[in-house]
Protein backbone atom coordinates (compact mmCIF):
# COMPACT_ATOMS: atom_id res chain seq x y z
CA UNK A 1 0.00 0.00 0.00
CA UNK A 2 1.41 3.40 -0.81
CA UNK A 3 1.97 6.13 1.75
CA UNK A 4 -0.74 8.35 0.35
CA UNK A 5 -3.42 5.71 0.88
CA UNK A 6 -2.09 5.05 4.36
CA UNK A 7 -2.22 8.75 5.08
CA UNK A 8 -5.91 8.88 4.20
CA UNK A 9 -6.59 5.84 6.34
CA UNK A 10 -4.84 7.52 9.26
CA UNK A 11 -6.93 10.65 8.78
CA UNK A 12 -10.22 8.78 8.66
CA UNK A 13 -9.44 6.12 11.29
CA UNK A 14 -10.20 8.22 14.40
CA UNK A 15 -13.87 8.58 13.48
CA UNK A 16 -14.87 4.88 13.46
CA UNK A 17 -12.62 4.17 16.44
CA UNK A 18 -14.25 6.92 18.50
CA UNK A 19 -17.71 5.75 17.42
CA UNK A 20 -17.05 2.16 18.43
CA UNK A 21 -15.47 3.31 21.70
CA UNK A 22 -18.70 5.06 22.61
CA UNK A 23 -20.46 1.72 22.42
CA UNK A 24 -18.04 0.08 24.84
CA UNK A 25 -18.14 0.44 28.57
CA UNK A 26 -18.37 -1.21 31.92
CA UNK A 27 -22.02 -0.70 32.76
CA UNK A 28 -23.84 -3.98 32.57
CA UNK A 29 -27.28 -2.46 32.03
CA UNK A 30 -26.27 -0.37 29.07
CA UNK A 31 -25.70 -2.99 26.43
CA UNK A 32 -24.60 -2.32 22.89
CA UNK A 33 -28.06 -3.41 21.65
CA UNK A 34 -29.74 -0.84 23.87
CA UNK A 35 -27.47 1.92 22.59
CA UNK A 36 -28.14 0.86 19.00
CA UNK A 37 -31.88 0.76 19.44
CA UNK A 38 -31.70 4.19 21.06
CA UNK A 39 -29.51 5.74 18.39
CA UNK A 40 -31.03 4.19 15.28
CA UNK A 41 -34.57 3.21 16.16
CA UNK A 42 -35.38 5.94 18.65
CA UNK A 43 -36.12 3.43 21.39
CA UNK A 44 -36.79 5.59 24.44
CA UNK A 45 -36.52 3.06 27.25
CA UNK A 46 -33.75 4.34 29.47
CA UNK A 47 -33.08 7.14 26.97
CA UNK A 48 -32.07 9.66 29.66
CA UNK A 49 -29.63 7.21 31.16
CA UNK A 50 -28.15 6.22 27.80
CA UNK A 51 -27.77 9.89 26.87
CA UNK A 52 -26.03 10.62 30.15
CA UNK A 53 -23.67 7.70 29.81
CA UNK A 54 -22.91 8.31 26.15
CA UNK A 55 -22.51 12.06 26.15
CA UNK A 56 -21.42 12.88 29.66
CA UNK A 57 -19.33 9.89 30.65
CA UNK A 58 -18.05 8.12 27.56
CA UNK A 59 -17.70 10.98 25.07
CA UNK A 60 -15.61 13.30 27.27
CA UNK A 61 -13.47 10.38 28.26
CA UNK A 62 -12.86 9.20 24.71
CA UNK A 63 -12.06 12.74 23.57
CA UNK A 64 -9.74 13.35 26.52
CA UNK A 65 -7.96 10.07 25.84
CA UNK A 66 -7.65 10.92 22.15
CA UNK A 67 -6.25 14.34 22.92
CA UNK A 68 -3.83 12.90 25.48
CA UNK A 69 -2.56 10.23 23.11
CA UNK A 70 -2.18 12.73 20.30
CA UNK A 71 -0.39 15.27 22.44
CA UNK A 72 2.00 12.74 23.95
CA UNK A 73 2.91 11.46 20.50
CA UNK A 74 3.32 14.94 19.01
CA UNK A 75 5.35 16.10 22.02
CA UNK A 76 7.53 13.01 21.90
CA UNK A 77 8.18 13.52 18.22
CA UNK A 78 9.00 17.22 18.65
CA UNK A 79 11.31 16.51 21.58
CA UNK A 80 13.12 13.82 19.62
CA UNK A 81 13.69 16.38 16.88
CA UNK A 82 15.00 19.20 19.07
CA UNK A 83 17.21 16.95 21.20
CA UNK A 84 18.26 15.03 18.08
CA UNK A 85 17.67 11.96 20.18
CA UNK A 86 15.26 9.26 19.01
CA UNK A 87 14.97 7.81 22.51
CA UNK A 88 13.29 10.66 24.39
CA UNK A 89 9.69 11.56 25.13
CA UNK A 90 7.87 13.45 27.92
CA UNK A 91 8.19 10.38 30.15
CA UNK A 92 11.90 9.67 29.58
CA UNK A 93 12.85 13.31 30.13
CA UNK A 94 11.02 13.41 33.46
CA UNK A 95 8.43 15.91 32.21
CA UNK A 96 5.59 13.53 33.07
CA UNK A 97 6.60 12.92 36.66
CA UNK A 98 7.41 16.61 37.12
CA UNK A 99 3.99 17.63 35.83
CA UNK A 100 2.23 14.95 37.85
CA UNK A 101 4.01 16.15 40.98
CA UNK A 102 3.09 19.75 40.17
CA UNK A 103 -0.54 18.81 39.70
CA UNK A 104 -0.65 16.76 42.90
CA UNK A 105 1.02 19.54 44.83
CA UNK A 106 -1.48 22.07 43.54
CA UNK A 107 -4.36 19.76 44.48
CA UNK A 108 -3.30 19.51 48.10
CA UNK A 109 -1.39 22.68 48.88
CA UNK A 110 -3.20 24.98 46.45
CA UNK A 111 -0.27 27.29 45.80
CA UNK A 112 -0.88 27.60 42.05
CA UNK A 113 -3.66 26.63 39.66
CA UNK A 114 -3.27 22.94 38.74
CA UNK A 115 -2.41 23.48 35.09
CA UNK A 116 0.13 26.18 35.84
CA UNK A 117 1.79 24.18 38.59
CA UNK A 118 1.97 21.10 36.34
CA UNK A 119 3.53 23.23 33.61
CA UNK A 120 6.08 24.86 35.93
CA UNK A 121 7.24 21.57 37.42
CA UNK A 122 7.17 19.85 34.04
CA UNK A 123 9.46 22.51 32.64
CA UNK A 124 11.63 22.34 35.74
CA UNK A 125 11.99 18.58 35.30
CA UNK A 126 12.98 18.80 31.63
CA UNK A 127 15.42 21.59 32.46
CA UNK A 128 16.92 19.49 35.23
CA UNK A 129 17.39 16.50 32.93
CA UNK A 130 18.99 18.68 30.30
CA UNK A 131 21.37 20.43 32.70
CA UNK A 132 22.39 17.12 34.27
CA UNK A 133 23.03 15.52 30.88
CA UNK A 134 25.03 18.45 29.48
CA UNK A 135 28.77 18.17 29.51
CA UNK A 136 31.15 20.34 27.47
CA UNK A 137 28.17 21.78 25.62
CA UNK A 138 27.33 18.29 24.42
CA UNK A 139 24.32 16.18 25.32
CA UNK A 140 24.75 12.55 24.39
CA UNK A 141 21.81 10.27 23.70
CA UNK A 142 22.42 8.03 26.65
CA UNK A 143 23.36 10.68 29.20
CA UNK A 144 20.06 12.42 28.52
CA UNK A 145 18.20 9.19 29.20
CA UNK A 146 20.15 8.60 32.40
CA UNK A 147 19.52 12.15 33.57
CA UNK A 148 15.83 11.58 32.82
CA UNK A 149 15.81 8.48 35.01
CA UNK A 150 17.19 10.50 37.92
CA UNK A 151 14.68 13.30 37.37
CA UNK A 152 11.89 10.74 37.17
CA UNK A 153 13.04 9.19 40.43
CA UNK A 154 13.15 12.53 42.21
CA UNK A 155 9.70 13.66 41.15
CA UNK A 156 8.06 10.28 41.63
CA UNK A 157 9.43 10.26 45.18
CA UNK A 158 8.15 13.79 45.77
CA UNK A 159 4.78 12.82 44.33
CA UNK A 160 4.57 9.89 46.73
CA UNK A 161 5.40 12.17 49.64
CA UNK A 162 2.65 14.59 48.67
CA UNK A 163 0.15 11.77 48.45
CA UNK A 164 1.13 10.14 51.72
CA UNK A 165 1.22 13.42 53.61
CA UNK A 166 -2.15 14.43 52.24
CA UNK A 167 -3.80 11.13 53.13
CA UNK A 168 -2.12 7.99 54.41
CA UNK A 169 -4.98 5.82 53.19
CA UNK A 170 -4.63 7.02 49.64
CA UNK A 171 -1.57 4.94 48.83
CA UNK A 172 -3.58 2.96 46.34
CA UNK A 173 -4.58 6.02 44.36
CA UNK A 174 -0.91 6.91 43.90
CA UNK A 175 -0.75 3.93 41.61
CA UNK A 176 -3.48 5.48 39.51
CA UNK A 177 -1.48 8.72 39.36
CA UNK A 178 1.85 7.14 38.60
CA UNK A 179 0.48 4.72 36.05
CA UNK A 180 -2.06 7.05 34.51
CA UNK A 181 -5.81 6.70 34.53
CA UNK A 182 -8.85 8.33 32.98
CA UNK A 183 -11.55 7.01 35.26
CA UNK A 184 -12.65 10.45 36.40
CA UNK A 185 -12.67 12.00 32.92
CA UNK A 186 -15.41 14.58 32.44
CA UNK A 187 -16.25 17.61 30.35
CA UNK A 188 -14.83 19.69 33.14
CA UNK A 189 -11.44 17.99 32.89
CA UNK A 190 -11.50 18.32 29.13
CA UNK A 191 -12.17 22.03 29.55
CA UNK A 192 -9.18 22.35 31.86
CA UNK A 193 -6.97 20.75 29.26
CA UNK A 194 -8.21 22.23 26.04
CA UNK A 195 -6.67 25.69 26.10
CA UNK A 196 -3.03 24.89 26.98
CA UNK A 197 -3.23 21.76 24.85
CA UNK A 198 -4.26 23.58 21.71
CA UNK A 199 -1.97 26.53 22.30
CA UNK A 200 0.94 24.08 22.56
CA UNK A 201 -0.18 22.08 19.54
CA UNK A 202 -0.56 25.24 17.49
CA UNK A 203 3.02 26.31 18.14
CA UNK A 204 4.34 22.84 17.34
CA UNK A 205 2.35 22.70 14.11
CA UNK A 206 3.54 26.13 13.02
CA UNK A 207 7.18 25.19 13.64
CA UNK A 208 6.97 21.60 12.46
CA UNK A 209 8.85 22.04 9.19
CA UNK A 210 11.61 24.01 10.94
CA UNK A 211 12.22 20.87 13.00
CA UNK A 212 13.57 19.28 9.82
CA UNK A 213 16.15 22.08 9.65
CA UNK A 214 17.14 21.50 13.27
CA UNK A 215 17.49 17.78 12.76
CA UNK A 216 20.65 18.26 10.67
CA UNK A 217 22.58 20.06 13.40
CA UNK A 218 22.88 23.46 15.01
CA UNK A 219 25.54 24.78 12.62
CA UNK A 220 23.57 23.58 9.61
CA UNK A 221 20.46 25.29 10.96
CA UNK A 222 22.32 28.52 11.69
CA UNK A 223 23.89 28.58 8.25
CA UNK A 224 20.44 28.18 6.70
CA UNK A 225 19.25 31.20 8.68
CA UNK A 226 17.35 29.40 11.44
CA UNK A 227 18.11 30.20 15.08
CA UNK A 228 18.16 26.75 16.64
CA UNK A 229 18.11 28.05 20.22
CA UNK A 230 14.94 30.04 19.73
CA UNK A 231 13.10 27.19 18.03
CA UNK A 232 14.21 24.70 20.66
CA UNK A 233 12.95 26.93 23.47
CA UNK A 234 9.63 27.58 21.72
CA UNK A 235 9.13 23.88 21.05
CA UNK A 236 10.15 22.93 24.56
CA UNK A 237 7.69 25.36 26.11
CA UNK A 238 4.93 24.33 23.73
CA UNK A 239 5.41 20.60 24.30
CA UNK A 240 5.67 21.06 28.04
CA UNK A 241 2.54 23.17 28.11
CA UNK A 242 0.49 20.70 26.08
CA UNK A 243 1.74 17.53 27.71
CA UNK A 244 1.73 18.80 31.29
CA UNK A 245 -1.88 19.88 30.74
CA UNK A 246 -2.97 16.36 29.84
CA UNK A 247 -0.73 14.72 32.42
CA UNK A 248 -2.34 16.89 35.12
CA UNK A 249 -5.64 15.10 34.50
CA UNK A 250 -4.50 11.69 33.32
CA UNK A 251 -1.39 10.93 35.37
CA UNK A 252 1.79 9.48 33.96
CA UNK A 253 1.41 7.43 30.79
CA UNK A 254 4.85 6.00 30.27
CA UNK A 255 6.76 5.65 27.02
CA UNK A 256 3.73 6.31 24.84
CA UNK A 257 5.22 9.50 23.39
CA UNK A 258 8.33 7.56 22.46
CA UNK A 259 6.80 4.68 20.58
CA UNK A 260 4.13 6.31 18.45
CA UNK A 261 6.58 8.65 16.66
CA UNK A 262 8.71 5.64 15.77
CA UNK A 263 5.76 3.76 14.34
CA UNK A 264 4.74 6.87 12.42
CA UNK A 265 8.30 7.22 11.08
CA UNK A 266 8.31 3.62 9.92
CA UNK A 267 5.15 4.22 7.93
CA UNK A 268 5.38 7.84 6.83
CA UNK A 269 9.09 8.68 6.96
CA UNK A 270 10.79 11.35 9.02
CA UNK A 271 9.55 14.56 7.43
CA UNK A 272 8.03 16.40 10.38
CA UNK A 273 5.80 18.37 8.06
CA UNK A 274 3.83 15.21 7.36
CA UNK A 275 4.41 13.22 10.53
CA UNK A 276 3.12 15.73 13.08
CA UNK A 277 -0.49 15.32 11.97
CA UNK A 278 0.00 11.56 11.73
CA UNK A 279 1.35 11.53 15.26
CA UNK A 280 -1.66 13.45 16.51
CA UNK A 281 -4.15 11.18 14.76
CA UNK A 282 -2.51 7.80 15.28
CA UNK A 283 -1.37 8.69 18.80
CA UNK A 284 -4.94 9.61 19.68
CA UNK A 285 -6.48 6.59 17.98
CA UNK A 286 -4.15 4.00 19.54
CA UNK A 287 -4.61 5.37 23.02
CA UNK A 288 -8.40 5.30 22.62
CA UNK A 289 -8.12 1.62 21.69
CA UNK A 290 -5.87 0.89 24.67
CA UNK A 291 -8.25 2.78 26.96
CA UNK A 292 -11.18 0.77 25.60
CA UNK A 293 -9.47 -2.33 26.94
CA UNK A 294 -8.68 -0.77 30.28
CA UNK A 295 -12.24 0.46 30.92
CA UNK A 296 -14.04 -2.66 29.81
CA UNK A 297 -13.30 -4.44 33.06
CA UNK A 298 -16.01 -4.43 35.68
CA UNK A 299 -15.47 -3.33 39.27
CA UNK A 300 -11.86 -2.32 38.84
CA UNK A 301 -9.75 -0.62 36.27
CA UNK A 302 -6.19 -1.35 35.24
CA UNK A 303 -4.40 2.00 34.90
CA UNK A 304 -3.82 2.77 31.25
CA UNK A 305 -0.12 3.45 31.91
CA UNK A 306 0.29 -0.21 32.81
CA UNK A 307 -0.75 -1.21 29.30
CA UNK A 308 1.37 1.41 27.54
CA UNK A 309 4.38 0.42 29.65
CA UNK A 310 3.95 -3.29 28.97
CA UNK A 311 3.47 -2.74 25.25
CA UNK A 312 6.16 -0.08 24.82
CA UNK A 313 9.00 -1.28 27.05
CA UNK A 314 10.17 -4.16 24.80
CA UNK A 315 9.92 -1.79 21.86
CA UNK A 316 12.12 0.71 23.70
CA UNK A 317 14.79 -1.91 24.37
CA UNK A 318 14.74 -2.92 20.72
CA UNK A 319 15.19 0.72 19.70
CA UNK A 320 18.00 1.17 22.18
CA UNK A 321 19.84 -1.77 20.63
CA UNK A 322 19.16 -0.53 17.13
CA UNK A 323 20.28 3.03 17.84
CA UNK A 324 23.85 2.09 18.60
CA UNK A 325 25.02 5.68 18.04
CA UNK A 326 24.28 6.49 21.65
CA UNK A 327 26.49 3.90 23.25
CA UNK A 328 29.87 5.33 22.36
Amino acid at each position, binding site marked *: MNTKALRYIAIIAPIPVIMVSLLLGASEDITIEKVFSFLFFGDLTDSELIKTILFHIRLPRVLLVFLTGGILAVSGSAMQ*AIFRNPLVDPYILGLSSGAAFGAALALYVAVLPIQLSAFVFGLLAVGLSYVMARKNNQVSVVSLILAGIITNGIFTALLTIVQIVSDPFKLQSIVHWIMGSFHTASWYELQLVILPAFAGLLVIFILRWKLNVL*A*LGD*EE*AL*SAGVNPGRIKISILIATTMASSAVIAVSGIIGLYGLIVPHIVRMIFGVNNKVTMLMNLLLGGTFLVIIDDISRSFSGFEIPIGVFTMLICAPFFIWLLKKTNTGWQ
Partner: protein
Amino acid sequence: MAMKEKPIISVTELSFGYNQNQSVISNVTCNIPENTLTVIMGKNGSGKSTFLRLLGGIMQYNSGAISVNGFELKKMKLGDRAKMIGFLPQHHKPVFPFRVSEVVLTGRASYIRFSPKKSDEYHVDRALELIGISSLKNRIYSELSGGEQQLVMIARILAQQPKILLLDEPISHLDYHNQIRILKLIKELVSNNITVVAVLHDPNMAYLFGEKFIYVHDSQVHEVKDEKPWENHLVNNIFDNELFPHEHDGKYIFIPKI
Protein backbone atom coordinates in the same frame (compact mmCIF):
# COMPACT_ATOMS: atom_id res chain seq x y z
CA MET B 1 45.27 36.00 -13.65
CA ALA B 2 43.66 39.37 -13.11
CA MET B 3 42.89 40.21 -9.49
CA LYS B 4 39.39 41.43 -8.83
CA GLU B 5 40.15 43.42 -5.74
CA LYS B 6 36.81 44.84 -4.69
CA PRO B 7 36.32 43.29 -1.22
CA ILE B 8 32.94 41.77 -0.41
CA ILE B 9 34.02 40.81 3.10
CA SER B 10 36.35 43.01 5.07
CA VAL B 11 37.71 41.89 8.39
CA THR B 12 39.18 44.44 10.80
CA GLU B 13 41.10 43.66 13.96
CA LEU B 14 39.14 40.49 14.54
CA SER B 15 39.83 38.47 17.68
CA PHE B 16 38.24 35.33 19.02
CA GLY B 17 39.02 32.82 21.76
CA TYR B 18 37.10 30.08 23.55
CA ASN B 19 38.47 31.42 26.82
CA GLN B 20 40.33 34.55 27.85
CA ASN B 21 43.88 33.20 27.94
CA GLN B 22 43.88 31.46 24.64
CA SER B 23 42.92 33.22 21.45
CA VAL B 24 42.29 31.19 18.33
CA ILE B 25 42.17 34.25 16.10
CA SER B 26 43.95 37.36 17.24
CA ASN B 27 43.76 40.85 15.80
CA VAL B 28 43.22 39.83 12.19
CA THR B 29 42.63 42.25 9.34
CA CYS B 30 42.04 41.05 5.79
CA ASN B 31 39.76 41.29 2.79
CA ILE B 32 37.90 38.74 0.73
CA PRO B 33 37.51 39.94 -2.86
CA GLU B 34 34.19 39.69 -4.65
CA ASN B 35 33.53 37.03 -7.29
CA THR B 36 36.75 35.20 -6.54
CA LEU B 37 37.67 31.76 -5.29
CA THR B 38 39.66 32.45 -2.16
CA VAL B 39 41.43 29.45 -0.71
CA ILE B 40 42.23 29.22 3.00
CA MET B 41 45.14 26.96 3.87
CA GLY B 42 46.85 26.05 7.08
CA LYS B 43 47.80 23.12 9.24
CA ASN B 44 45.37 21.06 11.27
CA GLY B 45 44.15 22.94 14.31
CA SER B 46 45.48 26.26 13.07
CA GLY B 47 42.06 27.91 13.35
CA LYS B 48 40.98 27.77 9.68
CA SER B 49 37.56 26.38 10.47
CA THR B 50 37.08 28.85 13.31
CA PHE B 51 37.98 31.72 11.01
CA LEU B 52 35.50 30.47 8.42
CA ARG B 53 32.79 30.06 11.06
CA LEU B 54 33.39 33.65 12.19
CA LEU B 55 33.04 34.83 8.60
CA GLY B 56 29.80 32.88 8.31
CA GLY B 57 28.36 34.30 11.51
CA ILE B 58 28.05 30.78 12.94
CA MET B 59 30.22 31.90 15.84
CA GLN B 60 30.26 35.31 17.46
CA TYR B 61 33.62 37.09 17.60
CA ASN B 62 34.92 38.79 20.75
CA SER B 63 36.24 41.99 19.23
CA GLY B 64 36.88 43.64 15.91
CA ALA B 65 34.46 43.78 13.00
CA ILE B 66 33.40 41.87 9.93
CA SER B 67 31.49 43.75 7.30
CA VAL B 68 29.78 41.94 4.49
CA ASN B 69 28.79 43.95 1.46
CA GLY B 70 28.98 47.06 3.63
CA PHE B 71 26.81 45.63 6.44
CA GLU B 72 28.10 44.77 9.89
CA LEU B 73 27.75 40.97 10.16
CA LYS B 74 26.72 41.04 13.82
CA LYS B 75 23.81 43.33 13.09
CA MET B 76 22.44 41.35 10.16
CA LYS B 77 19.21 39.44 10.65
CA LEU B 78 19.68 35.69 10.59
CA GLY B 79 17.51 35.22 7.53
CA ASP B 80 19.14 38.09 5.61
CA ARG B 81 22.55 36.76 6.46
CA ALA B 82 21.60 33.28 5.21
CA LYS B 83 20.47 34.75 1.90
CA MET B 84 23.85 36.45 1.65
CA ILE B 85 26.22 33.83 3.07
CA GLY B 86 26.05 30.07 2.80
CA PHE B 87 28.22 28.06 5.15
CA LEU B 88 29.09 24.40 4.60
CA PRO B 89 30.21 22.80 7.88
CA GLN B 90 32.86 20.13 7.90
CA HIS B 91 31.01 17.02 8.98
CA HIS B 92 27.97 16.06 10.94
CA LYS B 93 26.03 13.08 12.14
CA PRO B 94 22.46 12.71 10.95
CA VAL B 95 20.19 11.05 13.54
CA PHE B 96 17.02 10.57 11.56
CA PRO B 97 16.80 8.97 8.11
CA PHE B 98 15.74 12.00 6.07
CA ARG B 99 15.46 11.80 2.30
CA VAL B 100 18.00 13.69 0.22
CA SER B 101 15.32 16.04 -1.12
CA GLU B 102 14.21 16.84 2.43
CA VAL B 103 17.79 17.59 3.47
CA VAL B 104 18.41 19.90 0.51
CA LEU B 105 15.08 21.62 1.12
CA THR B 106 16.25 22.74 4.57
CA GLY B 107 18.72 25.01 2.75
CA ARG B 108 15.69 27.06 1.75
CA ALA B 109 14.81 27.85 5.37
CA SER B 110 15.55 31.56 5.09
CA TYR B 111 12.97 31.87 2.31
CA ILE B 112 10.34 29.82 4.09
CA ARG B 113 8.12 31.30 6.76
CA PHE B 114 6.36 28.18 7.99
CA SER B 115 6.22 25.56 5.33
CA PRO B 116 7.94 25.13 1.91
CA LYS B 117 6.21 26.01 -1.34
CA LYS B 118 6.39 24.60 -4.87
CA SER B 119 9.06 27.16 -5.85
CA ASP B 120 11.32 25.91 -3.07
CA GLU B 121 11.05 22.40 -4.41
CA TYR B 122 12.01 23.72 -7.83
CA HIS B 123 15.22 25.19 -6.39
CA VAL B 124 15.97 21.87 -4.73
CA ASP B 125 15.65 20.06 -8.05
CA ARG B 126 17.87 22.61 -9.75
CA ALA B 127 20.60 22.36 -7.11
CA LEU B 128 20.56 18.56 -7.33
CA GLU B 129 20.81 18.78 -11.09
CA LEU B 130 23.68 21.24 -10.89
CA ILE B 131 25.67 18.91 -8.63
CA GLY B 132 24.65 15.99 -10.83
CA ILE B 133 22.96 13.94 -8.13
CA SER B 134 19.32 14.08 -9.24
CA SER B 135 19.30 10.29 -9.05
CA LEU B 136 19.85 10.46 -5.30
CA LYS B 137 16.78 12.63 -4.73
CA ASN B 138 14.64 10.01 -3.00
CA ARG B 139 17.43 8.09 -1.32
CA ILE B 140 17.90 8.14 2.46
CA TYR B 141 20.64 10.65 3.30
CA SER B 142 22.15 8.74 6.20
CA GLU B 143 22.52 5.62 4.05
CA LEU B 144 24.69 7.41 1.46
CA SER B 145 28.48 7.22 1.32
CA GLY B 146 30.54 10.04 2.87
CA GLY B 147 31.26 11.51 -0.55
CA GLU B 148 27.63 11.42 -1.63
CA GLN B 149 26.63 13.08 1.64
CA GLN B 150 29.14 15.83 0.94
CA LEU B 151 27.65 16.38 -2.51
CA VAL B 152 24.18 16.59 -0.99
CA MET B 153 25.34 19.19 1.52
CA ILE B 154 26.89 21.24 -1.30
CA ALA B 155 23.58 21.03 -3.15
CA ARG B 156 21.88 22.24 0.04
CA ILE B 157 24.10 25.34 0.09
CA LEU B 158 23.36 25.98 -3.57
CA ALA B 159 19.62 25.73 -2.92
CA GLN B 160 20.15 28.45 -0.35
CA GLN B 161 21.26 30.78 -3.22
CA PRO B 162 23.72 32.90 -1.27
CA LYS B 163 26.05 35.49 -2.81
CA ILE B 164 28.97 34.14 -0.79
CA LEU B 165 29.80 30.48 -0.23
CA LEU B 166 31.99 29.51 2.72
CA LEU B 167 33.06 25.89 2.26
CA ASP B 168 34.93 24.03 4.98
CA GLU B 169 36.84 21.22 3.25
CA PRO B 170 34.18 20.71 0.57
CA ILE B 171 36.03 17.93 -1.26
CA SER B 172 37.59 15.99 1.60
CA HIS B 173 35.40 12.90 1.14
CA LEU B 174 35.16 12.97 -2.64
CA ASP B 175 36.94 10.76 -5.12
CA TYR B 176 39.47 12.35 -7.42
CA HIS B 177 37.09 12.89 -10.32
CA ASN B 178 34.38 14.35 -8.18
CA GLN B 179 36.93 16.67 -6.56
CA ILE B 180 37.79 18.08 -9.95
CA ARG B 181 34.14 18.20 -11.02
CA ILE B 182 33.11 20.14 -7.88
CA LEU B 183 36.03 22.53 -8.10
CA LYS B 184 35.22 23.19 -11.75
CA LEU B 185 31.63 23.82 -10.73
CA ILE B 186 32.84 26.23 -8.09
CA LYS B 187 34.87 28.11 -10.68
CA GLU B 188 31.76 28.25 -12.84
CA LEU B 189 29.81 29.74 -9.93
CA VAL B 190 32.56 32.28 -9.42
CA SER B 191 32.30 33.34 -13.04
CA ASN B 192 28.56 33.71 -12.44
CA ASN B 193 29.23 36.35 -9.78
CA ILE B 194 29.41 34.18 -6.69
CA THR B 195 32.15 34.66 -4.13
CA VAL B 196 33.61 31.44 -2.76
CA VAL B 197 35.89 30.96 0.23
CA ALA B 198 37.04 27.38 0.66
CA VAL B 199 39.32 25.58 3.06
CA LEU B 200 41.43 23.14 1.02
CA HIS B 201 44.29 20.89 2.05
CA ASP B 202 45.66 19.50 -1.17
CA PRO B 203 48.12 22.08 -2.63
CA ASN B 204 47.66 20.62 -6.12
CA MET B 205 43.96 21.38 -6.11
CA ALA B 206 44.36 24.61 -4.16
CA TYR B 207 46.89 26.23 -6.48
CA LEU B 208 45.24 24.81 -9.58
CA PHE B 209 41.82 26.36 -8.86
CA GLY B 210 42.43 29.08 -6.27
CA GLU B 211 42.66 32.73 -7.21
CA LYS B 212 43.54 34.24 -3.89
CA PHE B 213 45.30 32.58 -0.95
CA ILE B 214 45.00 33.08 2.77
CA TYR B 215 47.16 31.23 5.26
CA VAL B 216 46.15 30.73 8.88
CA HIS B 217 48.98 30.18 11.27
CA ASP B 218 49.56 30.86 14.98
CA SER B 219 46.20 32.64 15.34
CA GLN B 220 47.23 35.01 12.57
CA VAL B 221 45.85 35.30 9.06
CA HIS B 222 48.26 36.05 6.24
CA GLU B 223 47.24 37.23 2.81
CA VAL B 224 49.81 36.30 0.20
CA LYS B 225 49.42 38.10 -3.08
CA ASP B 226 52.40 36.61 -4.91
CA GLU B 227 51.95 35.16 -8.37
CA LYS B 228 53.48 31.92 -7.06
CA PRO B 229 52.62 31.83 -3.37
CA TRP B 230 54.41 28.49 -2.85
CA GLU B 231 57.64 30.27 -3.39
CA ASN B 232 56.90 32.75 -0.60
CA HIS B 233 59.26 32.42 2.33
CA LEU B 234 56.42 32.82 4.85
CA VAL B 235 54.37 30.05 3.27
CA ASN B 236 57.29 27.70 3.35
CA ASN B 237 57.77 28.51 6.98
CA ILE B 238 54.15 27.70 7.81
CA PHE B 239 54.35 24.26 6.24
CA ASP B 240 57.71 23.09 7.35
CA ASN B 241 57.88 20.81 4.37
CA GLU B 242 59.13 22.19 1.09
CA LEU B 243 57.17 21.61 -2.11
CA PHE B 244 58.81 21.13 -5.49
CA PRO B 245 56.63 22.50 -8.27
CA HIS B 246 56.51 20.85 -11.67
CA GLU B 247 55.09 22.83 -14.48
CA HIS B 248 52.83 21.56 -17.21
CA ASP B 249 51.15 23.89 -19.67
CA GLY B 250 51.49 26.88 -17.30
CA LYS B 251 49.94 24.92 -14.41
CA TYR B 252 51.76 23.36 -11.47
CA ILE B 253 51.68 20.14 -9.52
CA PHE B 254 53.70 19.66 -6.35
CA ILE B 255 55.92 16.95 -5.04
CA PRO B 256 56.79 17.04 -1.34
CA LYS B 257 60.32 16.67 -0.11
CA ILE B 258 60.82 13.17 1.31
